[in-house]
């Protein structure tokens, strides 16, 4: 099949989101089933794209409108994008299953549209090869995320959404000014051509532009000090949406950051930006872990844990070495799996027992054994216990950090891991060794999903080689800019 059909990854969610108003009269169940069906189709297309890219070894370049870049806009679905588009689609599909239990607040039709568009936005951010198009998809992702954060229509949700909106708005404007500077200096918006011309830009302009873009994306990527919105938003958003935030919305921001960062690697002042990013990332890890320690609400606690692990990924990307980027991608994959597992488990407990306070988790092992099992596996993995998947990626990130010589950063991250272990084991202890309770019925599809994810966690933990080789390819896709430029069929405008 023709590679251009990969544009269906964008067209299908859009078309189906626009279709929702026409079926809104059919009732809640029908709309939720419709979303499930669309995400299943999206997963199918994403799986085809993944197979295509990994079997041929060549990226799929989707050329919108038939205008060759840089005149038109292209999508670049290489190893990284193919992998993450598949993750986005699969996670959306799983959360579409969870929607049946977790989302009861009206209006479901609007929720369905926003849900599909969140998936679309993240897919677009990951796939695009044009820096202004990246901004457009970032806006799509961010604005859907604001609306979904406030969807529960409680006071906290409104506050969280407003916080997110203000910070996100500032971030977007920074990003846009940065893009304008780079456009002013190069005359092009195509990422490959920017990478080609990056070496010729005035170094001050490049540094300012890059730093503005990084700062703008840092809001989406939840880096300290721009992540104040994240815990509130994670806590207030509907449970499936929280899982999506953690599994791929923040990843899309991180990826965009890493992509732009490495595109500009031929700029003379590049290493200053890296140093700034290393500091920000390390602080993110440390601050988030210590904040997590104090939380009584488990959903919020896991939100902090998610932020800290995202900081770890950012640290890996900021190292500027192949080993670092590979490890970062590996951590991204692992983190997506366990955070879906954890937020699904915790969200389900909150739905069944009325709230995610730690009190509800006492005796969970007796009340909801399968869910408790899922959360336990997720917690053990998140801490980085050997033979679970995160262990390998954390190890590789720390080794890569030491290789570059940031001993202090590696030390701080390790210390933060100890803190992480404390609160996760406290949770596991509360689940299995405290409290009493009657058995509560558990939904079969959700239990199946949790067990499947738990098996995946352990499978990667015991046999990491396959996942690691995929992550290495995806990492090389970000790191090897020369190959990226070569893969995009630029028509020689001006260059």
């Amino acid at each position, binding site marked *: 099949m023709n590679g251009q059909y990969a544009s269906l990854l964008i067209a299908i969610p859009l078309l189906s989101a626009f279709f929702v108003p026409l079926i809104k009269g059919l009732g809640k169940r029908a709309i939720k089933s419709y979303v499930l069906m669309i995400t299943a189709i999206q997963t199918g297309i994403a799986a085809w794209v993944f197979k295509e890219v990994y079997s041929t070894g060549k990226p799929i370049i989707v050329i*919108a409108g038939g205008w060759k870049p840089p005149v038109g806009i292209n999508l670049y679905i290489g190893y990284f994008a193919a992998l993450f588009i598949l993750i986005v689609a699969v996670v959306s599909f799983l959360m579409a299953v969870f929607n049946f239990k977790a989302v009861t607040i009206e*209006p479901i039709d609007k929720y369905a549209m926003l849900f599909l*568009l969140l998936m679309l936005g993240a897919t677009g951010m990951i796939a695009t090869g044009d820096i202004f198009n990246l901004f457009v998809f970032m806006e799509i992702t961010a604005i859907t995320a604001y609306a979904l954060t406030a969807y529960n229509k409680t006071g906290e949700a409104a506050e969280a959404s407003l916080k997110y909106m203000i910070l996100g708005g500032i971030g977007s404007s920074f990003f846009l000014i940065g893009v304008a500077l780079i456009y002013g200096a190069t*005359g092009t918006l195509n990422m490959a051509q920017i990478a080609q011309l990056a070496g010729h830009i005035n170094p001050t302009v490049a540094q*300012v532009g890059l730093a503005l873009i990084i700062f703008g994306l840092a809001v989406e990527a939840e880096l300290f000090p721009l992540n104040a919105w994240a815990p509130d938003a994670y806590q207030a958003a509907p449970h499936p949406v929280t899982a999506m935030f953690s599994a791929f919305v923040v990843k899309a921001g991180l990826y965009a950051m890493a992509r732009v960062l490495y595109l500009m690697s031929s700029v003379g002042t590049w290493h200053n930006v890296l140093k700034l990013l290393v500091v920000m990332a390390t602080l993110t890890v440390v601050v988030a872990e210590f904040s997590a320690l104090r939380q009584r609400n488990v959903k919020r606690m896991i939100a902090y844990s998610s932020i800290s692990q995202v900081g770890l990924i950012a640290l890996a990307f900021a190292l500027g070495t192949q080993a670092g980027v590979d490890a970062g991608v590996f951590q991204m994959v692992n983190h997506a799996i366990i955070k879906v597992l954890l937020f699904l488990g915790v969200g389900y407990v909150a739905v069944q027992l009325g709230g995610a306070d730690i009190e509800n988790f006492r005796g969970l092992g007796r009340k909801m054994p399968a869910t408790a099992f899922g959360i336990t596996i997720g917690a053990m993995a998140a801490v980085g216990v050997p033979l679970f998947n995160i262990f390998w990626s954390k190890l590789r990130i720390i080794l890569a950090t030491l290789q570059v010589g940031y001993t202090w950063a590696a030390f701080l991250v390790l210390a933060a891991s100890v803190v992480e272990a404390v609160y996760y084991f406290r949770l596991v202890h509360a689940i299995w060794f405290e409290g009493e309770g009657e058995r509560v019925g558990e939904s079969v599809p959700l239990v199946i999903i949790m067990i499947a994810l738990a098996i995946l966690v352990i499978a990667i933990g015991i046999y990491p080689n396959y996942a690691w080789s995929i992550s290495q390819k995806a990492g090389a896709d970000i790191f090897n800019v020369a190959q990226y430029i070569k893969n995009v069929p630029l028509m020689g405008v001006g260059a």
Partner: protein
Amino acid sequence: MVSILKRGLAIIILLVIGYWLAQGLSGVPFGQDKMLVGQYYLNHVKQQTGAVNAVTAVVVNYRGFDTLGEVTVLFIASTGVGALLWGKNRKRTARTEGSVVLTTGTRLLVPFVILFGAYIFIHGHLTPGGGFPGGATIATAFLLLYMAFTMYEIPYKAFEKTEGIVGMGYVVVGLIGLAIGGYFLFDWIWQTWGWGHNNIGRLFSGGFIPVIYTIIGIKVGTELSGIIDNMLKEEVKE
């Protein structure tokens, strides 16, 4: 004391950042010919897209993918407003009827405002403007109606459905391009069918630009009217 220190610190940080930004900005060659892609557009726009208005050609044709995204952003905004202001029993609660000048003026003007809006988006490939301003103009007509009459409301269910249908229309135009020309959002009307090639500068030219701008115009018009409707209504307790 603390607040003065805090403020001083904030000012110093702002000055440092401002200086740094100014440094960056001064390094961008302003006013010089830095048109890599821009020059290409200017040289080829007529022959490749059939539009006389180069801006429109860039927005809808060369970078049409971005515009599809922007349309989606607006759609999300209206959906988000709809989701957050949702209520079972929402009605208009305005009490003061508009003055004679306002009501009479509205009655006379509304058809012409809508006509003008339609003119703007239909002629997007020839004159400044296009789907977004055209749609906004149309929404102004409905805003006028809301201001003048306390009882007026748009047929919001029909508007919502229209919004969805025209949105799908945009994607379908893109998909037809994929089917005919092999690329998503390919301009099949101009490049494959070759319609309007000897009509450049007149209404029936510009390939799919007028089609898409009509879609966008209707979409923006219904969306903005929907937002006005949502924001004006309040939950009424029986």
